């Protein structure tokens, strides 16, 4: 999770370690109102946000960033889609494409996508952790997914197996 929020591996490891340490120090405050994993994720999220805030003076937001939950996001239009097998992830270029696309999402969309689609939290758990409404989770998730599709589908299509090398 930390890796999807901060840009480099070392910093992500710092975020994750700090989150574990904070969880350890605050273990007595964990009351079992949520799953332990959800609690740990919320601590990691806060730590990642703290780091990003600290860097915000040098970090520029994308100029074409979509407005908060407004406007329309259109997907990339394709006439056919050849399934990209998970074996494709053995290739560094494919992993990099995915990491970059997630990194291009603005934090409000990335947070929801990571919690729902990577950490597998429910809509309700995501809403609770981020302190936003369930409908906001759904809207942000939809937009995040379509933005990923829009960026990745044309690029991954070029990576699709033509030479059967992934099936050999």
């Amino acid at each position, binding site marked *: 999770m930390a890796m999807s929020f901060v840009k480099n591996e070392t910093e992500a490891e710092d975020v994750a370690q700090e989150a574990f340490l904070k969880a350890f120090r605050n273990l007595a405050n964990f009351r079992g109102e949520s799953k332990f994993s959800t609690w740990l994720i919320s601590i990691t999220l806060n730590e990642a946000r703290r780091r990003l805030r600290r860097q915000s003076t040098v970090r520029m937001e994308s100029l074409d960033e979509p407005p908060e939950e407004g406007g329309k996001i*259109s997907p990339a239009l394709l006439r056919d*889609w050849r399934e*990209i097998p*998970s074996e494709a*992830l053995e290739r560094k270029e494919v992993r990099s494409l995915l990491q970059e696309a997630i990194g291009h999402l603005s934090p409000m969309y990335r947070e929801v*996508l990571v919690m729902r689609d*990577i950490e597998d939290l429910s809509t309700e758990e995501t809403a609770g952790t981020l302190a936003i409404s369930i409908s906001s989770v759904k809207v942000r998730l939809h937009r995040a997914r379509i933005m*990923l*599709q829009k960026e990745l*589908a044309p690029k991954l299509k070029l990576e699709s197996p033509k030479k059967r090398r992934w099936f050999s």
Partner: protein
Amino acid sequence: MILECKHVWDYISEFLDDSLPPETRELVQKHLENCEICSAILDSTRNILVLTADDRVFELPAGYSERLHARLAREIHGANSRPEKPTQN
């Protein structure tokens, strides 16, 4: 009621989560059966999400667990409050 493509795109995410009301889901399903563009959008979105969720996308760095355990061990033993100073000869 017939859905246009741009309306179907609004339902892609909830269609994937199977959280649409049954009547809406049926309308979207019917559209998908007859529209290769929307089917390709749905398939590509689903496929991309499957790939994104794979552990290999954000792999843990080598030695991560060992370093984490070492740091937790230092915390447990209170070593954090007494940082070691290099010995001077």
